[in-house]
């Protein structure tokens, strides 16, 4: 089943985000964008070039940017603010909490260069806690698209979503999983492969690794279901409960601190619905380091082979 995915390399999700903004800008003059001196990296410069009067360059001042975005949104604009995930969430967290979440303002927040796959720049620019931070903002919707197709569609949906949204984007080019006609719905996960022995649940670039791991497991006679949870909050309880009931074993893989990301949120649903064996694959209580993205991912066990190891461990526990 997993073999049906060719996983050809596509664009980085940050680039798809930038292109989606331009599309939005063309069809809706209410769309505005703020950036904090990283527009060439976040790809908001595409919007800035096309619509300069609706592009607000805030300098290297993320806290100010988030609050300005909140002010624009509270005056009726469809406002996006973007920076590296590490900066917009960590430096703007207080503003996201007070001016956006608590105030009920539907700001759209985009964090690029998430996870450890940014590579050479190292841990100060990496974001291994952004899912945790974003999910801790009451009322926020948190989205982590897997490829350019998902990002393009979900950014456009997020624009018209009634509440505040955080979108997690990556730096590196990632494999394309979805065809151009794929439908995405905020809050609804997508089952990518059938499977009966265990379920691999993931988000962002680890979904492709889970598909590769599933193919390897299949060769061993193991039937692995793969689920893309592109929306982390609100989480798709139905797809998780069904997987727990039908496969009795779940491995969550994520490019994030393992004790505060997607896995613990999936575990909550499993505990509340159909308790089953679970394992968690992610970054373990540490910060990564500089290196080529593929080297960093390999060293910190974010590859299909590593996912397969964790999957076998989970299955062994299931079999008791």
């Amino acid at each position, binding site marked *: 089943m997993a073999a049906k995915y060719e996983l050809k390399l596509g664009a980085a999700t940050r680039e798809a985000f930038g292109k989606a903004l331009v599309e939005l800008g063309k069809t809706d003059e209410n769309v505005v964008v703020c950036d904090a001196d990283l527009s060439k990296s976040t790809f908001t410069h595409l919007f800035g070039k096309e619509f300069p009067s609706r592009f607000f360059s805030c300098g290297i*001042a993320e806290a100010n940017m988030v*609050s300005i975005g909140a*002010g624009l*949104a509270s005056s009726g604009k469809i406002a996006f603010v973007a920076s590296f995930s590490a900066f917009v969430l960590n430096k703007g967290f*207080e503003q996201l909490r*007070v*001016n956006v979440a608590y105030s009920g303002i539907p700001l759209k927040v985009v964090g690029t260069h998430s996870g450890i796959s940014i590579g050479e720049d190292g841990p100060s620019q990496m974001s291994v806690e952004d899912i945790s931070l974003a999910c801790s903002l009451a009322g926020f919707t948190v989205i982590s698209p897997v490829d350019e197709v998902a990002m393009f569609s979900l950014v456009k949906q997020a624009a018209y979503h009634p509440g505040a949204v955080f979108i997690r984007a990556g730096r590196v080019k990632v494999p394309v999983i979805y065809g151009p006609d794929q439908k995405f719905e905020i809050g609804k996960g997508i089952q990518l492969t059938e499977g009966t022995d265990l379920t691999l649940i993931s988000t962002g670039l680890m979904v492709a690794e889970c598909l590769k791991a599933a193919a390897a497991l299949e060769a061993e006679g193991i039937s692995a279901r793969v689920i893309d949870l592109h929306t982390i909050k609100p989480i798709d309880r139905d797809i998780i409960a069904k997987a727990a009931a039908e496969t009795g074993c779940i491995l969550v893989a994520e490019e994030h601190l393992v004790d505060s990301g997607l896995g613990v949120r999936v575990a909550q649903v499993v505990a509340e619905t159909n308790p089953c064996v679970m394992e968690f694959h992610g970054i373990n209580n540490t910060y990564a380091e500089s290196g080529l993205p593929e080297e960093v991912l390999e060293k910190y066990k974010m590859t299909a082979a590593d996912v397969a190891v964790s999957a076998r461990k989970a299955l062994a526990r299931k079999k008791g």
Partner: protein
Amino acid sequence: MTRTSDLSELQAMARTVRRDIIEMIGAAKSGHPGGSLSAVEILVTLYFDVMKHDPANPAWPQRDRFILSKGHAAPVLYSVMAESGYTPKDQLNTLRRIGSIYQGHPDRRFIPALEASTGSLGVGLSLGLGMAEAAKLDKSPSRTYVVLGDGEIQEGQIWEAAMYAGFHKVDNIVAILDNNRIQLDGWVKDIMAIEPLAEKWAAFGWHVIEVDGHDIVALQAAFAEAEATKGKPSILIAHTVKGKGVSFMENNPKYHGVAPTKEEVELALKEIG
């Protein structure tokens, strides 16, 4: 009360607002009287004369925006909003009680006519800049007024906002600094001095107007000067007295965040008249 430029009417309203503040905080048995009393003339002049707003239509897109960035002075805002007709006057004394619309700090969930939920210091000026930029995009005459505490400008984000407003020439925003010289732990000059104020704001590209923050006529003139100033944001450095109008609270750091006792309430109301 309907809007007026008449000095005696505005002064009478200032007395009413001071009474409201004392009664509210007295009833709540907690709150921040000092910084509420210091801002009375600023808010009375804005709400009853300067600002274009309509309590019957709080969502009017072209309304002027008001943000109390120093959110702990909520009682002064609640009083002017109630006296304007936004919210019920007869519930003011439910301040800080469970379920009250008059929360400890301004909360839009309870009063939708509020432009901002505030209370965490340092963020209001940036929020106001977003509203001001939206008004410019919409070619709306709406102006944005943000009241800052003097201790509040120790927060770094204030200076990010100051730099943005000066550089981007956001001339439809007015900051009002309630310079009452006292913060929670004591005198501002002893905690973290902020002087020279005028020079700092001017260096960030602002038009600076120094004004007696209790002189309504001077405040009216200062707001008019701000409105006439194009190509620059304006700030009123309003020299005020913490606890103004109640002798035992004036210039007394104790009353930053301590409610008056029942006896003190009576004494204060007698003084205010």
